[in-house]
């Protein structure tokens, strides 16, 4: 209890409690994440089950009975007769899963390589940073297409839908790790010459322990900020990749795939197919970005 009280009054939480933007953003993120997680309980339909779809329900307007079947859908249906509301919930699951996992992948890869590069130096550092250069050269789209192609060649078909998701994760993660690595390397270079690290070295601590115990905690706040911003970017990147045809499979659309489908109906009058998923994506990315913004301002002591 005392602990909670202390945490409640800590600088960090105090600053949070007194920032309405941060509170609202976090609330919005939580609502969206929870509704994605519990989509099967909330959603009125299962849009990923082809047997449940009736093509004649296609293009139903929001809140209006379908001309052929008389069914009513809150936010209308898409071209396959999928309920847009349910698809948004299920699609958000995929978008969030891809976003989180990709950032986690990028974070682990980037932070470890950055630490190693900064701490070990020499040829290791050169090699890692040059690989980072190579990575920067390849647009995420191309990485995705290439990985997609390779994966297609080696996975059995019944796993391809799942595979498409992992391809997205790897592609987005791969195009994202470099900035983690750069920041961590820079911070490591600074930290490693500080006295406490030198002291740790002198008493014979192993490099791995020094990196994890002493250097890592000191570079965590920029990493956290980058991770938050990256999450928003990853969710958007997933949508962009869908636009270029390497996104989530059409039978299991993500938020991005849904926007891409909707994009084709922007001029034909079926505005709801693009509008609602776009609003959801905007709400998600914007609140994550605002949180990241607040984190950056709070964790940067120079600005306080």
């Amino acid at each position, binding site marked *: 209890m005392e602990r909670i009280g202390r945490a409640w009054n800590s600088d960090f939480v105090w600053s949070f409690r007194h920032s309405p*933007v941060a509170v609202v953003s976090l609330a919005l993120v939580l609502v969206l994440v929870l509704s994605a997680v519990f989509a099967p309980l909330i959603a009125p339909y299962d849009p990923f089950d082809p047997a449940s779809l009736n093509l004649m329900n296609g293009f139903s307007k929001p809140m209006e009975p379908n001309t052929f079947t008389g069914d009513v859908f809150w936010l209308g249906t898409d071209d396959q007769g999928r309920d847009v509301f349910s698809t948004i919930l299920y699609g958000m699951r995929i978008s969030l899963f891809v976003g989180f996992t990709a950032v986690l992948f990028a974070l682990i890869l980037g932070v470890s390589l950055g630490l190693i590069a900064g701490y070990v130096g020499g040829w290791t550092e050169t090699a890692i940073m040059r690989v980072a250069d190579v990575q920067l050269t390849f647009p995420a789209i191309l990485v995705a297409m290439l990985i997609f192609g390779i994966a297609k060649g080696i996975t059995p078909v019944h796993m391809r839908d799942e595979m498409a998701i992992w391809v997205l994760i790897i592609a987005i993660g791969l195009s994202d790790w470099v900035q983690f690595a750069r920041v961590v390397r820079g911070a490591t270079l600074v930290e490693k010459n500080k006295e406490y690290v030198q002291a740790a070295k002198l008493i014979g601590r192993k490099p791995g322990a020094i990196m994890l115990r002493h250097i890592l905690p000191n570079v965590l706040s920029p990493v956290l900020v980058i991770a938050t911003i990256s999450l928003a970017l990853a969710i958007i990147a997933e949508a962009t990749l869908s636009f270029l045809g390497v996104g989530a499979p059409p039978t299991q659309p993500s938020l991005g795939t849904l926007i891409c489908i909707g994009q084709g109906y922007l001029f034909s009058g079926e505005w709801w197919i693009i509008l609602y998923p776009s609003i959801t994506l905007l709400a998600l990315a914007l609140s994550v970005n605002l949180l990241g913004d607040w984190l950056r301002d709070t964790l940067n002591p120079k600005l306080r």
Partner: protein
Amino acid sequence: MLAYSIRRVVQSIVVLLVVGLVAFSMFRFVGDPIDNMLGQERTDADIERLRGELGLDRPFVVQYGRFLTNAATGNLGVSYRQGRPVASILMERAPATLELAAVSGLFAIVLGVALGVFTAIRRNGIAANLIMTISLVGVSLPTFLIGILLIYLFAVELGWLPSFGRGDTVKLGGWSTGFLTSSGLKALILPSITLGLYQMTLIMRLVRSEMLEVLRAEYIRFARARGLRERAINFHHALKNTLVPVITVTGLQLGSIIAFAIITETVFQWPGVGLLFINAIQFVDIPVMAAYLMLISVMFVGINLIVDLLYFAIDPRLRVDRTVTEG
């Protein structure tokens, strides 16, 4: 210094070679170019014959080797799709992308710095906070969606601006420019905003936080204490000191503007190298893909190299670090 520079240049060349090798090892996974090159009435024999002619039946290392030896003599190969030398296709398309990148870069810098300064000075003002929030909306939507929405609003509904393409261009030597005609300038507006929006937000935020930091620095407080006018402090002292990191970041961003022009160019049918690349993927035009990737690599690696060398020249601490870590 010289030794470091040479080592760095050699590394860059190795990076370029690796990029090429990786690219070539992966091209066959993009698809098969043959079907796009032959008509409906082709036979299997035609397919095999053409595959042989193009050298596609060879291992990728051999294909890469041939590409490199040709590239060394300035021959980038012939596009499978257009049947024309890739070098001349790239030369035709490069001005469009470079002009678009330049205008969006300019847009991003001018507006980014201006808004950054404003939001820093009025840190707690309503307008500043509004700008900060709205700018996040711009980076919370995918580029293609922003582009389509801009087209819908300004081209279709309002009819103010063209919906696609470059407008009329004027040839100046080998360079086709859209800067000299009114339709060319109009055509630049929407794609530049679409492409530059992200960078604009980035620069604005960077300028803001750098400004905030500098404004708290001792000498600014001192200047204020001396009774210098706010305006002079803000622009003469504070902004000047924030520009160094801004320029560095902007330099690095210029490369990504060109690389990520792909999406903007697709949405606006902007006839630059990005659109060319997307087309090349669609038709598995390996020579064009290879040349484009090498071009982008050269650019990125080049910018990285320059930035590193500059840092090395400017910041003596880094030199000490190097000698410590490598010595």
